[in-house]
């Protein structure tokens, strides 16, 4: 097939970056994906099963790599981008190791970072051994080994705490991370599947079941699996002498303060922007949302375009999204990129250079 000489650089080889790369490759563009880690796939590599249908994350990863049958992109791993500088109507992408790339258009898909739950000191993450995050639990689930707490025992009572670092002025994050609610439901069911005798609780402020089959999964968690949902934000966790954890909340629906003991507490930590995304965004003169994510040009009609012409954004570097939404967002971005490239095709005919170590 005819390959367009215009060059696209995608920063970040997670779900958004790979999905966009396959779309743009299929459309006949020359694409380079720069991935900072030694392997592409992003946080899907950590994840075991995906909500709401408990599909293995491998299935999505396979889909992403199968997209490269025609016109595969050049994928560079261990390629950490430090800046994107507009240069002669193009964009110069500088890497940590001194390499640089020239691109007609750039797509930033650098994803998110998990909120550092240590900041909510009252929950005792990294202080109490049996307080973990949803990421930690997912890693444990992925091993396929039985669920154990630190002492090697089987937990009998498990609590999920919602909105850790989300919807919380105290942690600096006013926004909702969106996917934690359904993650809490999904992981609660996974625990019940493996430990049918365990009592599993979710402490929440609101349950935001926005996606297809999310509400259904919430109902299933209650009806089929007997997961208990308590509407109340947890104020603090303390460790008992036997390393179990005492949790304080108000059951706001009955209007009673409660104290309960748990063997394991899972913090549903929210999404925050990657610090590197902020650096790259600043270097490219991009604007940011109030939550410090990369800002689209318009919140309704052009979420993937930015205030710097030729630079596009997709996925969780611009707002918290689910995997499904991330892939949709990436595809949407590619349409805008192709339009932009066509409009700008005749405006310059400079040779495209890849410069190493300059």
């Amino acid at each position, binding site marked *: 097939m005819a390959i367009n000489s215009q060059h696209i650089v995608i920063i970040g080889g997670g779900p958004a970056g790979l999905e966009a790369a396959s779309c743009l490759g299929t459309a006949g563009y020359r694409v380079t994906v720069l991935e900072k880690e030694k392997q592409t796939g992003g946080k899907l590599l950590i994840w075991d099963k995906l909500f709401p249908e408990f599909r293995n994350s491998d299935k999505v990863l396979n889909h992403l790599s199968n997209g490269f049958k025609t016109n595969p992109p050049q994928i560079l791993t261990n390629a950490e981008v430090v800046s994107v500088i507009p240069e002669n109507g193009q964009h110069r992408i500088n890497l940590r190791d001194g390499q640089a790339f020239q691109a007609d258009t750039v797509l930033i898909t650098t994803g998110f970072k998990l909120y550092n739950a240590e900041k909510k000191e009252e929950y005792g993450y990294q202080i109490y051994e049996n307080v973990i995050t949803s990421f930690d639990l997912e890693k444990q689930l992925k091993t396929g080994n039985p669920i154990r707490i630190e002492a090697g025992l089987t937990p009998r009572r498990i609590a999920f705490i919602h909105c850790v670092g989300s919807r919380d002025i105290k942690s600096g994050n006013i926004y909702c991370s969106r996917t934690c609610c359904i993650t809490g439901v999904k992981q609660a069911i996974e625990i019940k599947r493996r430990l049918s005798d365990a009592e599993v609780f979710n402490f929440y402020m609101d349950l935001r079941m926005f996606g297809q089959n999310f509400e259904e999964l919430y109902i299933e968690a209650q009806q089929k699996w007997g997961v208990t949902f308590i509407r109340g934000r947890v104020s*603090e966790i303390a460790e008992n002498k036997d390393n179990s954890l005492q949790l304080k909340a108000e059951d706001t629906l009955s209007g009673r303060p*409660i104290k309960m003991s748990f063997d394991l507490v899972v913090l549903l930590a929210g999404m925050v922007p990657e610090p590197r995304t902020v650096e790259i965004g600043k270097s490219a003169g991009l604007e940011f949302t109030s939550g410090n994510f990369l800002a689209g040009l318009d919140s309704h009609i052009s979420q993937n375009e930015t205030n710097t012409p030729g630079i596009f954004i997709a996925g969780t570097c611009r707002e918290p999204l689910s995997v499904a939404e991330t892939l949709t967002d990436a595809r949407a971005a590619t349409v805008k990129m192709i339009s932009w490239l066509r409009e700008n095709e005749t405006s310059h005919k400079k040779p495209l250079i890849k410069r190493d170590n300059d």
Partner: protein
Amino acid sequence: MGKLYDRLNQDIRFIEGLNGCLNCGVCTAICPAAEFYHYDPRVICATVQSKDEKMIEALIRSETIWYCGECMSCKTRCPRNNTPGFVIMALRKLSQELGYFTDSEKGRQQFAIKRAIGGNILRTGYCVNPDIVSPQMHPEQGPVWDWISMNTPEIMKKMGSNYKQAGVGGMRAIAPEVLEELDRIFEVTGCYTLFDTIEKHSKHKANELGIEISDEGIGNEYFMTVYTENNGSHNG
């Protein structure tokens, strides 16, 4: 007199203390008073936020607003930067001004606090000091307090305090010019007006109940009544 909600909205503590509550209950979850009393700061915020005049009036006539210890733990937790403790302060002030505090047992204790603590500050410069805490009135201090109160000067000396003497250090005598300054502060900030209001409504209540009340001091039947009465329904 205007609407109660509007009056609350003139209080800086209310303005800063409540900016849209999402009813998550974290204030109640951290609240020490909620552990012991029938007390729920979240519900108080919800009531006030409803702007329902009847419910706000019921609240400032109730026992509820007097359970808070003003420890401000709620301020440290609220994800919306509200401070239920500030809301309580504004509600208490309104209850004092309107005389509604005499409707509740815990509210009537405002009289005892005004006469005891309020009097202490103006007289000595201290809210509380060893001379003021008599063993008869404070059995919770335990039997050792009897002995301490009988040997206060010696004990204070041994503890290295500057007990009742001029100069610096703990338990020192507060200088007359400092007491005068306190007096001015009470005048300028409206504390005396509030004291007078508490006195007026308390005397009215005492007369209504047919209980003897004096013009000053704590040696009167009404003081002892509000100081000791306990209907036993505050917790449990």
